[in-house]
């Protein structure tokens, strides 16, 4: 389809606005305006599109857009910050679904016209496949994270074989569509593409159910890249440059974030996706309950903090998000600062369940991002800190990761060196390890470590009380 000059330039403007928007996501000061600029770019692209399409369809389009927007606003406005991973999954899924449906109807149009070339003939089934996998994969990821269904790792015998057969079937159907029914004469090309769509939906489910809930963010990031590439592929079919540019940029983005996460987890991506080992991770924990720990009360912690601590570094982790303890955390910071104690945060890149997730939760309750130091910046600070308070985290502070004698799933991952602080205070419910299932030697350092066994929220509340009274 030839786009006119004005729409083409509008698309180019939109692409430039996306680029400028993403550039501005580099600093917290400019990030919000960056998002606004990108949204403006989207508006430009959509308005330009209205000029290249027939007038009659406007009503249908308008209805769908309004409906989608309303649902989008309602969900986006209500979601809790701790539920961000599943929200991103949901929006990503519908994007993938849209790509698959568009490819399907484009296939219908092109084969009606009889103008299906090599490019469209191969790209369309691919887009249907990728988009559908992204859709159902995201649905499953959403259900896992929201704990609606498929929690844990769902496996069944011969799973890999079933996946392989299904994938082969999809290839045959795609070839049949491209070759106009020469392979399976009873299936018309359009019917074949529809079959590809449904088979890919099933594949999406099967691919994601064996992966443990904690690995979901990686899956979501990967599916995000997939959806971007599906959009780019649609751009090839529709000969629309804005789709190619924006889709590819998102594809690259998702790829980088995925690599970053799997890298920080110290496990190759392939293992996460194909082995479903994540689920078994949690079960590796050895029974070590016999070793003594320094089990303390919240008031003991509060006393130490208000009497002895001039500088405290807090390390939040996944458990804080689960317990929704972020606003109590703010209370603790205020109580400590009122008493003249300096408070900093050490945010590990993979703390929580989504990259940068802890930063969002802490800023949500009004803790300034200038206090949120990353790994490199905070590690030298522990040396002159009087206490490191670890709330609902384990892996990101586990010195076992850098013990050359141990071979653990987190071996080699740089961690926050909380052990350099004067005292180490853990607030968690038990001695159970975290996501990676690796026991933490710091728990048993009875001279240095205080273990406060409690839910993060309750524990923090009690500590805040104690600090205020202390």
């Amino acid at each position, binding site marked *: 389809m030839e786009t006119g000059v004005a729409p083409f330039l509008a698309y180019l403007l939109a692409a430039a606005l996306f*680029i400028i928007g*993403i550039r501005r996501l580099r600093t917290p000061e400019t*990030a919000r305006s960056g998002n606004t600029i990108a949204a403006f770019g989207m508006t430009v692209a959509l308005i330009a*599109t209205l000029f290249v399409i027939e007038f009659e369809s406007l009503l249908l389009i308008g209805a769908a857009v309004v409906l989608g927007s309303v649902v989008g606003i309602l969900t986006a406005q209500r979601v809790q910050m701790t539920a961000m991973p599943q929200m991103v999954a949901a929006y990503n899924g519908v994007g993938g679904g849209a790509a698959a*449906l568009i490819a399907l109807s484009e296939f219908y149009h092109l084969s009606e016209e009889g103008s299906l070339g090599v490019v469209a003939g191969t790209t369309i089934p691919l887009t249907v496949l990728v988009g559908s996998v992204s859709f159902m994969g995201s649905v499953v990821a959403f259900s896992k994270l929201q704990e609606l269904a498929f929690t844990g790792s769902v496996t069944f015998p011969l799973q890999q074989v079933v996946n392989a057969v299904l994938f082969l079937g999809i290839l045959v159907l795609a070839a049949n569509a491209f070759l106009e029914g020469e392979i399976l004469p009873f299936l018309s090309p359009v019917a074949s593409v529809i079959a590809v769509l449904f088979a890919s939906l099933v594949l999406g489910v099967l691919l994601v159910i064996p992966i443990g809930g904690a690995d979901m963010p990686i899956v979501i990031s990967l599916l*995000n890249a997939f959806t971007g590439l599906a959009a780019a592929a649609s751009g090839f079919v529709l000969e629309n440059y804005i789709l*190619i540019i924006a889709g590819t940029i998102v594809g690259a*983005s998702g790829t980088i974030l995925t690599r970053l996460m799997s890298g920080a987890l110290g496990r190759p991506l392939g293992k996460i996706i194909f082995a479903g080992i994540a689920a078994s991770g949690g079960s590796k924990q050895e029974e070590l309950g016999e070793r003594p720990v320094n089990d303390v009360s919240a008031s003991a912690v509060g006393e130490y903090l208000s009497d002895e601590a001039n500088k405290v570094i807090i390390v939040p982790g996944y458990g804080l998000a689960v317990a929704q303890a972020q606003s109590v955390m703010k209370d603790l910071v205020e109580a400590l600062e009122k008493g003249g104690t300096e408070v900093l945060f050490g945010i590990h890149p993979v703390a929580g369940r989504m990259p940068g997730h802890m930063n969002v939760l802490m*800023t949500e309750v009004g803790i300034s991002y200038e206090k949120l130091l990353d790994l490199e910046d905070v590690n030298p600070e522990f040396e002159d800190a009087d206490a490191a308070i670890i709330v609902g985290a384990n892996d990101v502070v586990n010195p076992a990761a850098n013990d050359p004698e141990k071979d653990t799933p987190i071996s080699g991952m740089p961690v926050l060196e909380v052990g350099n602080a004067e005292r180490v205070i853990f607030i968690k419910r038990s001695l159970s390890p975290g996501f990676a299932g690796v026991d933490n030697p710091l728990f048993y350092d009875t001279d240095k470590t205080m273990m406060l066994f409690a839910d993060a929220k309750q524990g923090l509340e009690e500590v805040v009380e104690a600090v205020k009274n202390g």
Partner: protein
Amino acid sequence: MQETLIQFAIFIMAGFLGFELISRVPNLLHTPLMSATNAIHGIILVGGMITIAADGPAWVKAVGFLAVFFGALNVVGGFWVTNRMLSMFRPPKARVKRRKG
């Protein structure tokens, strides 16, 4: 063919650009980044609008309708939630120059 080649060139350029752009976003902002790029791939909505506008039987129209609905949900929800997140990254009142190292 020439057309496809040029599209491929654009694709390669956009790929490089994407890598450069994203790899400079700090971890602090990775969650909003993921959410914002997620909204940007809602650009697929443009494709949906073009497709829905072409002639076709009812089922194809219905497919197009669903696609546009999905796309709009992706775009609007994505940008909205990103904005909500980023509005929390307020600049600190008393700006303390962060010590290096």
